[in-house]
């Protein structure tokens, strides 16, 4: 309260001016950053307005204002629930399989007796993380190709007819999850390997003296020590339940597997960039962004509440 009154005095005004002057280089420094943020990060938010227009590229915001009709059209789209359902199906399967996999992988790595072997396995396991999505999808299509794929060769040698997996919707989620496992299990174990390294070795020593075998040590020492990390990552993963790897889903998509592979982001891309219905596509994208933000904030709230750790 007192400060407020002092601020109006000439002395204080001079001090404020001095502080601004002293920071002139700092302001000069943030100037390009602020311009950048305004143009590249906040202007897109301004363009979200196009969700309320029948937006035409050449007319810009002189296009016809249509109010909420893009949104009513979206919510009346009979496929909307299927798009969200497909995303949830993909993410739930990923959660069930891809979430525990790096934990188990890291624990098994920790059990390897030779440090050099462990390092080698780790180095190899990180490799897939650096493969681009285009290359990944190319490898998938080669491997499961019914003509030249290794999987087809295996099927033939077992006396079965090769299946064209990419053209059957029921294989879309398994293809995604298996390739996701390949690409992510090594890399995502990094954080658990680090957490494992932080466990006091004397705990294991004490457990061994008490006669605990390695299974018991894993259950009673390792897992509880990893619990905070696991819970935090789990909550964050749930917060990203509606996010997808757009590139992968888009590239694996074809007309035959569309029933399982069409999701909101790919729908947005096709409606907007390909179909030129900018307003409608923006509305659909905005809907997706808003749900995502709500989920992330919710996840963060839960995490702050129960584990005293939060991202923001």
């Amino acid at each position: 309260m007192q400060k407020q009154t002092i601020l109006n005095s000439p002395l204080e005004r001079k001090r404020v001016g001095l502080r601004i002057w002293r920071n002139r280089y700092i302001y000069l420094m943030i100037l390009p950053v602020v311009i950048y943020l305004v143009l590249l990060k906040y202007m897109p938010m301004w363009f979200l307005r196009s969700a309320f227009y029948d937006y035409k590229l050449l007319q810009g915001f002189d296009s016809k204002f249509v109010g909420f009709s893009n949104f009513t059209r979206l919510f009346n789209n009979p496929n909307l629930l299927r798009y969200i359902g497909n995303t949830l199906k993909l993410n739930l399967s990923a959660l069930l399989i891809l979430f525990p996999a790096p934990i188990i992988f890291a624990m098994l790595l920790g059990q390897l007796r030779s440090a050099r072997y462990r390092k080698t396995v780790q180095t190899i396991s990180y490799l897939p993380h650096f493969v681009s999505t285009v290359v990944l999808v190319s490898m998938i299509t080669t491997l499961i190709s019914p003509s030249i794929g290794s999987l087809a060769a295996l099927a033939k040698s077992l006396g079965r007819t090769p299946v064209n997996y990419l053209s059957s919707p029921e294989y879309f989620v398994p293809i995604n999850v298996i390739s996701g496992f390949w690409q992510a299990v090594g890399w995502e174990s990094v954080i658990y390997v680090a957490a494992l390294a932080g466990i006091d070795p004397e705990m294991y020593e004490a457990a061994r003296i008490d006669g605990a075998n390695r299974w018991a040590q894993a259950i009673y020492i390792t897992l509880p020590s990893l619990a905070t990390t696991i819970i935090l990552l789990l909550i964050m993963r749930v917060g990203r339940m509606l996010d997808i790897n757009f590139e992968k889903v888009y590239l694996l998509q074809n007309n035959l597997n569309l029933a399982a592979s069409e999701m909101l982001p790919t729908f947005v891309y096709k409606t907007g960039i390909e179909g030129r219905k900018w307003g409608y596509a923006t509305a659909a994208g905005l809907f997706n962004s808003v749900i995502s933000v709500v989920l992330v904030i919710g996840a963060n709230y839960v995490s702050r509440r129960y584990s005293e750790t939060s991202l923001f």
Partner: protein
Amino acid sequence: MQRTHKKQHHEFIRRGPGAKAFDAANWLFMLLMCAIFLYPLLNMLSISMSNQFAVLRADVTFYPKGLDLSSYKLIFENKDIWNSIMNSLFVALVGCLCSLLLTSLAAYPLAFGDFYGKKLFNFLILFTMWFNSGIIPIFLTIRQLGLHNSLWALIINAMLTAYNVVIVRSYFQSVPISIVESARMDGANDFLILFRLILPLSKPVLATVSLWIIVGHWNDYLHPMLFLANRSKYTLQLVLKELVLNAEASIHNISVTGDATTSGAAALGQQVRNGVLVVSMIPMVILYPFVQRFFISGVMLGSVKG
């Protein structure tokens, strides 16, 4: 040293038959995992270097059969591929430099500044982390700025990410503020302090962020697809997609009809396609030792925040 040696010895004696069996199984399991991680990559490499008949019989697995490097000759003679490699290199390298500069300019005031508007500035940056406007508004913005169909669109769009600012800022803060203060006393301005004092001390974090940006640009497919219209501007991933995946559908069809003559061409196509994929991964392979080290330190930096 002595102590750990003793401990290991101690453990060794206590291992029962069950533990030994587990160790052996674990050892084998990890070997199998390595085979799984490497197989698709080795398969890709092998197909690109194999004789087309072996490719057609789906005979090629871990190693090339009937060595045939003609696909690489075709790749190196292809102007589209060379051009796209140059475009990708330009975007990755120039993008990395621009990005480092802008990220440092954002991180320094947050780390050492004490100025009016710092909270607002921080908020402006962090807000972009939570809310993503989506691809259509970004596309419209890039058009508005006149950057459509320019490689600069890719560079500028990815120049600043909130996450990188946070990582670089927290690394900057490991420099004691008293050093910065005394440099200011000596009359050095903030630009001088940033470029002469802070940046040279922050090489590890700059290397980490650089590699993130380079790998991100090199592997990016979505943004080139959004921003680039002209073939001469295409980046490598766009050309890869065109060469490899658009043709893939026709190959599936060929195999269904079992047309022998077209599938011969398809097999050569397969070698070339896999060869292009291999070529696209060469920079990653060269960078891999650094990438691995700095990416992991990056994960650690990130987990400190989390």
